[in-house]
């Protein structure tokens, strides 16, 4: 324990060097901006910044401080458009739209932005503390999580689809199934067989998440708005009260729970921030179900997924730093950055280059504080987005979405696909089919099939092995309860 404090002290000595402070700040600003931009995620941004780091001959710890700040800073950006425009900028912000946008329509967009910023800070900072002290043992536990355990975890997350679906359960489930089917398009990872590609080369690699999200949310929303000439949907600027201290305290328990869920999920190399934000949102919704406030603008419905998202992002760095194992594409590129400096990522990082490892951890305490300080005063500025006339805002948003999709793919096919999803999103809104289950099905469906396949291959086809470990038994139990829970009222009536 004392060793950790000493090492962390050494880390702060690195992180507090003026250049590194400035780089952390720069990274936070870029990260927030990247989170707002549709199409360009932290993975792309880090790759684009790498050559700059090399060209500027930044030392490895400085480069990593900058790149990591882009990574965790992006977790602060995705919520802005999700809340104000109902258009999530990244996968994990999809849940934020559920309560964030209703709040914006009540004129409380600013409050929603503020609580999500505070939640992000709480989740990230508590996770950095946990990471500082428990990194190595946690990573050891995380690799013990087997494919069968992942199957149970993802099945549990999927079983909560009904909770994010609005009024009609069959519609929510159908939407989830559609999301899963979209994720199955492309070369099947198990057998190498092409599925549902209709012979198209563009579809070999599958549907890109960005294309789906831009279509369903941005284009779909704009089609709906244009049809009614903005009469019904648009969010209001101001009119609602500011976020009070009482409300922050009211949300605090939700944030603490979300931190726990997010960090644990994040540490697992095979899960991700989307799973974390979905689980924490539905957990809060189920906990407070009797009041029926979720989905209508409950602050906790904004705080929980945003907290879990940032906690999971930090958690994702645990296996990367302590074991040298990237749990996601973005952490893999961060690891690649180490390699560029001839530093071997892996278990020896903390002993061989404590300046890099602890400098990075220390910079995350500072960076998250910066992000909070950066984001809270800017809440008002962000919210003013809504005072921009629709005929400026929406053409801009649409062009930005198309530009983001096209710039990273150079594919007109992707644009056409996004338009197709946009029409689908528009019709689904009119038919009361919820969009969030589509996205969750899309993200989770592929993971479920992959892990199911792994688990069955390892157990030689024995289904019993899927519920052999204590973790999986508990998770399956929770899944059964989650599926049966909505039916309890009907059973009681009979």
């Amino acid at each position: 324990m004392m060793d950790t404090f000493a090492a962390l002290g050494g880390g702060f000595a690195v992180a507090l060097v003026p250049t590194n402070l400035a780089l952390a700040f720069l990274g936070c600003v870029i990260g927030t901006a990247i989170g707002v931009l549709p199409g360009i995620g932290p993975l792309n941004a880090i790759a684009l910044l790498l050559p700059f780091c090399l060209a500027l001959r930044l030392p490895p710890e400085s480069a990593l401080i900058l790149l990591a700040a882009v990574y965790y800073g992006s977790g602060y950006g995705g919520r802005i458009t999700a809340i104000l425009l109902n258009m999530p900028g990244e996968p994990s912000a999809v849940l934020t739209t559920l309560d964030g946008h209703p709040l914006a329509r009540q004129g409380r967009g600013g409050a929603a932005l503020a609580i999500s910023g505070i939640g992000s800070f709480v989740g990230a900072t508590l996770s950095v503390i946990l990471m500082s002290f428990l990194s190595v043992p946690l990573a050891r536990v995380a690799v013990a999580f087997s494919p069968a355990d992942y199957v149970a975890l993802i099945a549990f997350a999927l079983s909560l689809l009904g909770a994010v679906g609005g009024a009609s359960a069959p519609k929510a489930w159908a939407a989830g199934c559609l999301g899963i089917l979209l994720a199955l398009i492309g070369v099947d990872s198990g057998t190498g067989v092409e599925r549902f590609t209709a012979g198209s080369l563009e579809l070999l690699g599958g549907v890109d998440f960005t294309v789906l999200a831009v279509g369903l949310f941005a284009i779909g929303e704009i089609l709906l708005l244009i049809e009614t000439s903005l009469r019904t949907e648009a969010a209001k600027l101001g009119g609602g009260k500011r976020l009070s201290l009482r409300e922050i305290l009211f949300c605090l328990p939700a944030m603490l729970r979300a931190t726990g869920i997010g960090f644990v999920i994040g540490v697992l190399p095979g899960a991700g921030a989307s799973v974390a934000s979905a689980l924490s949102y539905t957990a809060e919704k189920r906990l407070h179900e009797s009041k029926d406030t979720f989905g209508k603008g409950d602050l906790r419905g904004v705080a929980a997924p945003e907290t879990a998202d940032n906690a999971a992002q930090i958690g994702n760095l645990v296996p990367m730093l302590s074991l040298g194992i990237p749990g996601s594409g973005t952490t893999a590129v961060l690891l690649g950055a180490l390699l560029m400096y001839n530093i071997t990522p892996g278990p020896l990082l903390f002993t061989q280059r404590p300046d890099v490892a602890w400098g990075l951890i220390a910079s995350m305490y500072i960076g998250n504080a910066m992000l909070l300080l950066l984001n809270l005063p800017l809440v008002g500025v962000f919210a003013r987005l809504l005072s921009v006339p629709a005929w400026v805002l929406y053409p801009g948003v649409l062009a930005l979405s198309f530009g983001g999709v096209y710039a990273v793919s150079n594919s007109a096919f992707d644009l056409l696909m996004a338009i197709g999803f946009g029409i689908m999103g528009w019709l689904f809104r009119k038919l009361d089919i919820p969009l969030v289950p589509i996205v969750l099905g899309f993200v989770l469906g592929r993971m479920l099939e992959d892990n199911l396949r792994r688990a069955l291959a390892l157990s030689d086809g024995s289904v019993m092995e899927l519920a052999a470990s204590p973790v999986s038994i508990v998770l399956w139990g929770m899944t059964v309860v989650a599926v049966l829970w909505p039916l309890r009222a009907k059973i009681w009536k009979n």
Partner: protein
Amino acid sequence: MSAGSAEGARGTSIVSADRILGLLLIILAALVFWSAQSLIVPFAADPLGPKGFPYAVAVILAICGALILLERGPAFAWPERRAAPFLLVLAMVAYALLLETLGFILATTALALGVALLFGAGPWPALATGAVTGLALWALFDKLLDLPLPQGPIRGFLGA
């Protein structure tokens, strides 16, 4: 038919929007099932294979479709401004198809201009919106993020 008359049709229409949706979902499930069963597996690499999971999802989808089919929902709410969404889709498709020929700046300017008009802007403000959007986004993606975008006929004008 406006949203108001759609309300009036609630519960009375046999052919409701939901029923059509339910039917479409069942057809989709059948298509998925048919498409999956025609997959050829080179060898049994794992016990699940490529078909098992799509089958399961298709079955659940079909059940959901049937449940939706059984409920009587409201009739479909037709767009209030019928032309506007149609024109927007047309503009977007034209953008996707002409982007490479026209170049990013011209195509984006035209798209943003058109959408601004659809949102009720006057011709000059719409043109300003279009031009600013096109140039600003080009500067953002091509110059700042170093992601090359098609230049189109104004290639030489922009410089290398």
